[in-house]
């Protein structure tokens, strides 16, 4: 089977700072990839490259066999992206914002309108459909963002901390949604700092640190390498520069005189 996402020797520098130092990754259809790493490891840079937000990288990125540098538009049409932080035009209403997104994805208007109404209703936002989003809570905005990423029924879905701000019930909805999408053959690229969620939803975990992939495999495989411990502990073992419990001790010592 051909990989649906393939990164070969991807490098990216910001000035002198090397952010990605040769990322190699093949992802296959229907996989849920948990993409994890400490702050500054290069997670969001990878995501931005995949979404076509950063184009001056070195190496080769292809999606469904299409080279990202050759035909970025065709690639973008196949990807649904849910950005971190609530980046949306909040003076628009969800219906307007999602309608705008639909048009940019070349969706027929009737289809878009119908789908928007259904998706918002599923998230319990049907009453807020025509309210401006500047009054929305973080969770409500996140629901609109998730809808905007799924609206055009993409093959690949990139989620960057999709659960932030959502209440416990919505978290369950999104988690279920992720596994259903994967069963439907969608490929999901899931970036998060929440290890317990990543551990549960993803069937393959990619851990990057300082611009390189340092671990790649299912949770069980990682456990075989690192011992029978939680993903949180594996993460700490592989990326923690100093012992983390020392840091906690130091914090406690700060109370002393």
């Amino acid at each position, binding site marked *: 089977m051909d990989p649906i996402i393939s990164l070969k020797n991807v490098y990216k520098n910001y000035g002198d700072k090397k952010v990605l130092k040769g990322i190699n990754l093949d992802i296959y259809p229907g996989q849920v990839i948990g993409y994890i790493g400490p702050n500054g490891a290069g997670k969001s840079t990878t995501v931005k490259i995949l979404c*076509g937000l950063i184009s001056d990288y070195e190496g080769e990125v292809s999606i469904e066999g299409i080279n990202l540098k050759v035909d970025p538009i065709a690639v*973008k049409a196949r990807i649904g992206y849910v950005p971190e932080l609530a980046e949306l035009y909040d003076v628009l209403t969800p219906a*307007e914002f999602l309608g705008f997104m639909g048009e*940019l994805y070349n969706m027929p208007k009737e289809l878009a309108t119908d789908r928007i109404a259904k998706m918002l209703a599923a998230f319990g936002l049907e009453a807020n459909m025509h309210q401006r989003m500047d009054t929305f809570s973080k969770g409500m905005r996140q629901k609109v963002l998730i809808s905007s990423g799924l609206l055009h029924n993409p093959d690949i879905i990139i989620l960057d901390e999709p659960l932030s701000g959502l209440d416990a019930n919505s978290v369950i909805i999104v988690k279920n949604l992720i596994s259903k999408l994967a069963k439907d053959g969608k490929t999901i690229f899931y970036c998060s700092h929440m290890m317990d969620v990543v551990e549960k939803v993803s069937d393959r975990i990619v851990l990057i640190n300082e611009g390189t992939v340092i671990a790649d495999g299912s949770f069980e495989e990682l456990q075989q390498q690192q011992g029978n411990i939680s993903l949180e502990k594996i993460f700490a073992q592989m990326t923690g520069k100093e012992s983390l419990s020392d840091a906690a001790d130091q914090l406690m010592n700060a109370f002393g005189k």
Partner: protein
Amino acid sequence: MNIFNRFFLRLLLAPTGLYRRIGVNPLHLRAILIAKLTMDDRRPAGLHQMRRKKEKEKPTTGATLGTMFFTALMGCFFLFSFGVGGDAMTQYTFYFSFYIFILASTLISDFTSVLIDVRDNMIILPKPVTDKTFLLGRLFHIIIHVAKLVLPMTLPGMIYTGIISGIPGLLPFMVLVLLASLFTIFLINALYVFILKVTTPEKFKNIISNFQIFIAILFYGGYQLLPRLMGKTALEGYSLTSAKWAVVYPPYWFAASWQYMKTFDLASPLVIYFVLSIIIPVLSVWVVIKYFAPSFNQKLSMISGSGDEPVAAKTNSKDILSTTSSYITSVANWLTEKGAERMAFLFTYKMMGRSRDFKMKVYPALGYLAVFVVVMFLNNKKLSLAQIQQETGQGKFVFISIIYFCSFALSTALGQLTFSDKYKAGWIYYVTPIHNPGRMYSGAVKATIIKFYVPLVAIIFCTAIAIVGPKVIPNLLLGFFNQVLITILTAYLTLNAFPFSVQQSTSMKGGKFIKGLFALAIPIMLAIVHYFIYSYLIVIIMLCLLSGIATWLMMDALKNKNWEQVYAREYEG
């Protein structure tokens, strides 16, 4: 969507075939423009105004129409230039100067806040939209935005020109307005590129806002002072055609070009300006596209900061300590009680110096005051230095006015003290165990006095003593104590929230207005009383003592306000 937006949209989207040929998707273009224009329409006119998100208040709609109306009013002000100067060339030079100047200062902030929205990068770029479509969408948005400013702004000028010179005058005028607008956009671009070259993106916004403060004061000052300095009759007969420097002054080219285009006489010496007025804008557009545009977007997105780059930590231990200057720390130690009051003092002092929002509101007001004082001096033609020295009549009047004028500076600053864009950070006052909220007030008021009054007082004291001699000191002191007393009294009566903890709202409540009047009336009354007793030294010294004691007592009262007395505002976060 109002009629103007629909008109521009239809106009710009007409050549769909052409767009397809150059790789632009007309449907995407239309979607982007509609979204952008809808957002513009909902964006409140003033940057800081009406951000209130209460359901009771009507959400902003039709902001465009409102803005256009005010722009047209502004355009009417330009008509003053037709009252200046003896000939049409001079008048139109003034007109174009005003126009370029005001358009530039209006657009300069829009470029970061409205036109180049960095959210676009996150929202539109990951969608299957070609770069050309995206860029053309942005360009058209800028064109529509500028057109919505330019048309109402020049409408009064057009009507005037049409009435005075008929169609032969009107058509060239319209062409020249277009060219001047292009030239203005070039100026703004050049300024942005220049500022970004010499400074870091983080400082950029501060520089732009300082620049706007400067422009506002300069404009007001020029408007007030120029006619007075030159004399009214001199201004009416003034002609620029004889001035040599006019040759290098772009608004003069536009004026001369207008004059030329009415006749199209090839032999006229004005032909050179005609050529200049066409070539320079076209050339500047070319420069913008060729050199500025490519790096511009990228640099602007740096301004809003994606937060990718960590802030360089200050490594030098000296730097860390020096964030609080030793001067203000010692002033704080001397003036305030340890604890909440000192914390409030230092906090307020620093915030007033660093908050862009606060500076934008207070500094222009201070500038206007300064201009006003100068105007007052110039209006008093009879006034002489000797009169001030002898402290008689006019001299006394000016002296008192200047002393008491400072209270307006103080009340302006005090009035803005509680407002902030980051009002949500006000939670700090409610979660910390503050026993006496009054300490927060007294600290903040002291900081305001130190920041906005003491420097002024120092200047006034030095100048007054230098001109009049030490005998003026009792009067100065009385003025000083009265000022401080008024400030503290105003604070006691009107300050009803902690510093920088309330969201700015535009609606001026009735009570607030009365309080504002009150704050104006007290210093005027005191000034009048002071004027009449000016020469009685004993009385002055007595009152000085009284005022000092009252100040002290008043400050004590403010300091000891407890939670029940404080109008406990709900936390608005």
